[in-house]
């Protein structure tokens, strides 16, 4: 058993999911003709706007583009701590 593990080591790095993740992100940008970095800028600006009204838990704020049937959705999830008003 040991010798077989040594002869045929099990793969630890999963190239397949790396490829899939890169592919998904690349096609989302391609389909929207979205230049690299634009999403990050949007995220910062949105955070600033929401941040004027609420105190945010920045560690759990989630910002993502998801694809369904070749259409992208912008998913923004702001964890609010308290109102600033």
């Amino acid at each position, binding site marked *: *058993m040991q010798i*077989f*593990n040594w002869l*045929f*080591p*099990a*793969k630890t790095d*999963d*190239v*397949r*999911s790396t*490829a*899939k993740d*890169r*592919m*998904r992100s*690349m*096609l989302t940008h*391609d*389909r929207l003709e979205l230049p690299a970095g634009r999403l990050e800028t949007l995220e910062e600006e949105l955070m600033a706007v929401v941040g004027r009204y609420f105190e945010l838990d920045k560690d759990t704020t989630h910002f993502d583009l998801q*694809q*369904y*049937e*070749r259409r992208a959705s912008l998913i923004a999830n702001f964890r609010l701590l308290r109102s600033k008003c």
Partner: protein
Amino acid sequence: MSGRVIVITSGKGGVGKTTASANIGVALASTGVSVALVDMDIGLRNLDILMGLENRVVYNLVDVVEERCKLRQALVKDKKLPNLSLLPAAQTRDKSAVNAEQMKALCGELKSMYDFVLVDSPAGIEQGFQNAVAGADEAIVITTPEMSAVRDADRIIGLLEARKDEIKEYRLVLNRYRPTMVANNDMMSVDDVLEILSVKLLGVVPEDEDIIISTNKGEPISGTDNIRAGLAYRNIARRIRGEDVAIMDLESKNSTWINKIVSFFNPTVRV
């Protein structure tokens, strides 16, 4: 008669468009229907070689469009299947030799003569591609499970979507599939590619050295029994004709004795 015009396209070059066109053509014709194969790769003619018909080409598609000959004179009959013909591309001209209107008219004429008209598109998304899709009712998108090929296929799907009024349906053929690499998590699976592209699957063709041998012989593999890639193409032809054929189990071939021994000792490893 009004046949179906199906364009075979991929965006990226070298993924197997022409091989697929030849094989699907032979497989379809073997089911009894009449088929015309149209080589739209003007300037880079290759479909005649794959069909083993290169010595019989007299006239070509550009000759027909420019009225130097009749359509029937340019069509080359297959050696084995009398219901299969090839309309060769011109070798000395380029993509600007024909336009979309002329292609529409040509496809219209061909589909009055044949049950199926398969148009082998050139690589790229420029005029050659635009001409190839101009007269098409349906499309087959060919890709391999590699990132660059999938990206280009996505671009093509976007362009086909924009022509929804003319191109009613498009389906994917995943070519050069390597089940062992997928099992090793080294390559995207069929489901991964379908999920990413959100597209319907027409078939999966495994990587097969016999394809190279068949190309060298000028005999498309789908006419040969006992070869998995050939069976894959015959299944594709049946699905095109509307039959419900299950995607074949590609994993079984890898159950070689060495694989079985290794799996016995360490089920997580495959060779």
